[in-house]
């Protein structure tokens, strides 16, 4: 076995491991978010395992589809889950290494995100119910404002590296820690964080724990889903949340991530990478949940303002990366 092939295999192993870790950890992250909120509110909480239990329970159930729903009702959950899995493989969470044929390019990642977003939107529309349509319309409005911000923010981060692939960006920050506190980088990460909060339907953009249909965004779209379909949609959404949160965590604190190095990352590096990303993501989950506790949901018409603000920050990051480095 030549060195090149061995490297290739190692990379594939790394990517598979990364995907598995993210899939296993994503429901736990949701559990962490809920538990932290519960503790802040003085409740006992449901425990970290509950999202996993919910998933298992739903996966065992046969999906019921609303009358009048089309093929979208069962294709969309698959697409949502698929895009989540693809994201887990592409985005550098455990390792910055990626197979050459699967480019973890910024534009590819954003496209994958968008595919999931659109699938979710179509799922909401499919049954033809008022709530689903309402949720989809809000969801796509927000998405239209979020995606450019994500693009722009990551682009600002890519300027000092000279590559739009996420792996080298994270590696670049690891190699030059000064970049982490550089103004352009700070602005970009702040913008990205806001975009991630909006993209993953958290407070203050959406309230994941509300029962009020009229205020829902994400929840309104999945009202008609049930059983395995609901499990797929939920897991897909949780994967997005985990991957994006881990990405932000890796950008802010790049240490510990397994770098591509020569011939792919070794096992010790991967093990360290797994531990590091779990700790970092859990920590950012705690921060996110804590911030949510002390925040209220924005008025729907204020959401574009928030997102415009994050867009402006991302824009300033791009100009700033030319102006003040």
């Amino acid at each position: 076995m030549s060195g090149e092939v061995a490297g290739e295999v190692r990379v594939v192993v790394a990517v598979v491991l990364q995907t598995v870790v993210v899939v296993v950890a994503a429901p736990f992250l949701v559990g962490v978010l809920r538990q932290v909120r519960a503790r802040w509110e003085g409740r006992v909480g449901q425990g970290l395992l509950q999202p996993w239990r919910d998933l298992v329970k739903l996966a065992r159930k046969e999906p019921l589809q609303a009358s009048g729903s089309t093929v979208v009702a069962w294709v969309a959950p698959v697409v949502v889950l698929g895009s989540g899995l693809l994201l887990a493989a592409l985005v550098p969470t455990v390792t910055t290494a990626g197979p050459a044929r699967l480019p973890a390019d910024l534009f590819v990642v954003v496209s994958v995100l968008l595919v999931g977003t659109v699938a979710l939107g179509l799922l909401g529309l499919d049954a033809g119910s008022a709530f689903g349509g309402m949720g989809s319309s809000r969801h796509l409005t927000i998405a239209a404002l979020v995606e450019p911000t994500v693009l722009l923010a990551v682009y600002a981060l890519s300027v000092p590296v000279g590559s739009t692939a996420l792996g080298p960006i994270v590696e670049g920050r690891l190699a030059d820690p000064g970049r982490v506190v550089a103004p352009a980088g700070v602005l970009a990460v702040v913008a990205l964080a806001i975009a991630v909060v909006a993209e993953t339907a958290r407070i203050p953009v959406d309230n994941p724990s509300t029962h009020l249909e009229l205020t829902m965004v994400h929840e309104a779209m999945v009202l008609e889903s049930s059983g395995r379909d609901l499990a797929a949609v939920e897991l897909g959404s949780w994967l997005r949340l985990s991957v994006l949160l881990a990405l932000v965590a890796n950008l802010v604190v790049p240490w510990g991530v397994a770098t591509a190095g020569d011939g792919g990352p070794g096992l010790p590096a991967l093990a360290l990478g797994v531990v590091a990303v779990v700790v970092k993501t859990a920590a950012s989950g705690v921060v996110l949940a804590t911030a949510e506790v002390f925040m209220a949901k924005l008025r729907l018409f204020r959401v574009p303002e928030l997102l415009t603000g994050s867009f402006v920050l991302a824009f300033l990051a791009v100009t700033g990366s030319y102006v003040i480095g």
Partner: protein
Amino acid sequence: MSSGDASQAVALLAGLELLTAVLLAWRGPASSPRGPLAVQGFALAGLVAVIGVAEGEPVLWLVALLVGVLKGVVLPTLVVRRPSRAAGPAAPPAADRPATVRPVVRPAVVRGRSRVPLLLGAAGLVVVAYLAARPVTRVVTGATGQALPVGFALVLVGFALLATGRRSQSQLVGFLVLDNGIATTAFLATGGVPLVVELGVSLDVLLVVLVLQVLGSRIDTAFGAGAPGGTDLDQLRELHD
């Protein structure tokens, strides 16, 4: 401090100023401008100190202290200081209530206009500032020259805040951001104007803010509204041709 550290610090502080300027444009009518203004003031003071260290001019440390106190503490406090009248008649503390519990009063806020145009405008203005500052950055070398467009950007964003501010407080905030922009430009481009001028300028700014605060509360009295942030200045329509 090596020149690399200095330039990194200058860039960080300048970035902080820019961020706070955007936050001030972003802020809704109910949130206080005090925090961002104070951060901006301290960032400016830090900038002065860094320049003082880099250029070995102890007098700049003194100026940094002055700037820090004035723009980091005094002016932001002045801007949010509510005229005592707006606090309303203080209810006499009832005997059956602990003194710490103040009665609930309806906060006098209004729902502001959308900030989207202002935010987008601010982004455009930063680009304009970058272009406008190009000739100056040719003259001023080093890290300070690199960050100089931030000063221009602050001037322009401050101007936009001032021009679009509907309340006396938002106009004051715009004025202070504008002034911080000029000061940033001054320190980045020249390492500070002569001390006498600096003192005079600081005094002037302080007095102007004081004067505007007094006038703002007089406007509140004359136009009979005590919203925090001052009366809607769109009401000022008595004088026109």
